[in-house]
């Protein structure tokens, strides 16, 4: 029975979410962003996707060929004659490919969004940089949702001393200047994307924990939990099979907004120079580079910022969409 009911609730939520046109469009945009991140090598690379050379087919993006180890494919492509061809990705530059002949070029025919101070293609670096932003957002929030659920469930379900201790811990964490703490952690550890994920994950869980605790306190007193207890169910079973599923919907909302926040924090860290180690591209790192050329290189400062802004906005809009879909009464206000 409970199985059936929860399925119909989520179906209802999905249906309501679909009726929200803006949220649906934003959700599709998030999927497209993930596609861009996953297929970055096929979108921006200096190797051809397919190459017909001396009558034979090669796929240098997918496989390594011994004869092409140190080949410059662009030079090769220019020498190719009629039946032979080389099909490059839409952005035929790799994110780490230096071109000292075209340093700090404004957007143009060759480099759609211009080049940076080492002649690297900005669009290519942005496409590859999406991998950093999206994965940090996703993993960091994943970490803190797990921590938050765990601690919140313990505090809310058992109450008493556990609740007092954990609530105090949450209060301490909330008062903490979080961003300062994250910078401290990141600055003192070697630069890596995993450290950023962990730092955000370990500082961000308070919101989820408070929410889950509140939901547990509420649900713990309902008749069906009492019935379950009377039937002799173990605590773990009650927590995970009966209470948690009912508390997950609001958590999803918090998590979606959290991803937006995490992406902002990651880009801010990269902007301050604590991000992924070079030469890996990330949006914040591109912005941080642009600080030195702010008096003329507007393209370096504008496009990565727009990318961050759009990503954050669509996550926030999806969050709002989910919230309205879960509780349509909120929408009227």
């Amino acid at each position, binding site marked *: 029975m409970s199985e059936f009911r929860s399925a119909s609730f989520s179906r209802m939520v999905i249906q309501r979410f679909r009726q929200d046109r803006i949220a649906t469009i934003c959700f599709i945009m998030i999927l497209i962003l993930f596609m861009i991140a996953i297929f970055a090598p096929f979108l921006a690379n200096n190797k051809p996707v397919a190459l017909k050379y001396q009558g034979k087919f090669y796929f240098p993006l997918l496989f390594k060929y011994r004869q092409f180890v140190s080949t410059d494919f662009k030079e090769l492509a220019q020498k190719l004659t009629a039946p032979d061809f080389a099909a490059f990705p839409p952005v035929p530059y790799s994110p780490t490919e230096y071109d000292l002949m075209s340093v700090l070029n404004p957007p143009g025919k060759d480099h759609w969004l211009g080049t940076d101070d080492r002649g690297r293609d900005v669009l290519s670096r942005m496409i590859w940089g999406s991998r950093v932003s999206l994965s940090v957002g996703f993993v960091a929030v994943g970490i803190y949702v797990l921590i938050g659920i765990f601690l919140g469930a313990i505090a809310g379900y058992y109450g008493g001393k556990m609740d007092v201790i954990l609530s*105090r*811990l949450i*209060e*301490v964490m909330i*008062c*903490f*200047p*979080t*961003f*300062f*703490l994250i*910078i*401290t*952690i990141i*600055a*003192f*550890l*070697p630069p890596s994307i995993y450290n950023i994920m962990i730092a955000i994950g370990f500082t961000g869980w308070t919101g989820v924990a408070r929410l889950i605790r509140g939901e547990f306190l509420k649900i713990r007193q309902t008749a069906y939990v009492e019935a379950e207890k009377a039937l002799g169910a173990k605590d773990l079973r009650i927590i995970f099979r009966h209470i948690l599923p009912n508390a997950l919907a609001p958590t999803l909302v918090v998590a979606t907004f959290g991803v*937006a926040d995490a992406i*902002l924090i990651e*880009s*801010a860290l990269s*902007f*301050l120079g604590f991000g992924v180690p070079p030469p890996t591209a990330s949006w914040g790192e591109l*912005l941080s580079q*642009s*600080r030195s050329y*702010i*008096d*003329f290189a*507007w393209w370096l*400062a*504008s496009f990565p*910022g727009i990318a*961050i*802004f759009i990503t*954050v*906005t669509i996550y*926030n*809009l999806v969050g709002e969409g989910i919230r309205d879909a879960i509780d349509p009464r909120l929408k*009227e*206000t």
Partner: protein
Amino acid sequence: MRSYLIRRLFLMIPTLLGITLVTFLIIQLAPGSPAELKIRMDQAGSLGEQYTKEVIEQTKKLYGLDKPIHIRYLIWLKQVGTLNFGNSYKDHRPVMKIIMERIPVSLQLSFISIFLVYIFALPIGVFSAIRQKSAADRIITVILFILYSLPNFWVAMMLILFIGGGQFFHWFPVYGLNSEGAENFPLWQWLIDRLWHLALPVACLTYAGLAFISRQQRAALLEVIRQDYIRTARAKGLTEKMVVFKHAMRNSLIPIVTLAAALFPAMLGGSVIIESIFSIPGMGKLGFDAILARDYPVIMGDATISAFLTLIGILIADLTYTLVDPRISFEAKK
């Protein structure tokens, strides 16, 4: 009231202890001690391995880094008990003195920002709520949403690029708090110079809070307007103006006031980046520079004082609660 205040002040102690302990553990357990960093910077490998090791040991002893970590924390705590945060590793000045110089700057920034947030956000929220679903309301909602999602460091860069002497106009200064030689200006000129310098950083710190509070105010007012007593007020023939401003708005303010407590830590945190970008000598930039230089005493002092200010901010917001809503009282229920 007094007993409540005393209890709250006492409850701050464990919270502060927790915060300092976490910060202490992070900076002390991380690789790369300040002693090694200092040696590396001072002598850049010109000395023999053996000798360097000896110097490192000596430096560690000088800074008290040779003792085990829990002893170090206790020593630090004992010092703080007398409001002494030790001396900066960088210039050997007392940390308390450095922080005292920086606090007014940071408070200036955050107070002006919070003041501006409320001055603009409340009317926007109310306007938007009483014109709910009109074109104006829709446009305001979209603009607020955009403001809310803009990363503040990017906005800072864009402001510098467009109106801060970047590529286009040079209307605002983007460096420091005052022009050079401002201390000789007459007062009004000094004030204008200061405000001119604060314009861009304050704008960067303000707009997100503005968007947040406006949205909350709109939602809160709409929530109140649906209440029965508003229907009663309308039914007995009060003017709409009276209903909105006298009956609805006052009640909608209660949740909004406490949000100032949430804004305050966000401002202190956000100022790390904004102060660094605009080279403003506040607490944020102090902490940031100290982290880069591995200046342990300054990091600890900055974190402690920031946390303390945040706690005070939250306490003040809770106390204002009683001012806006006399029904709420902190005395124990009989």
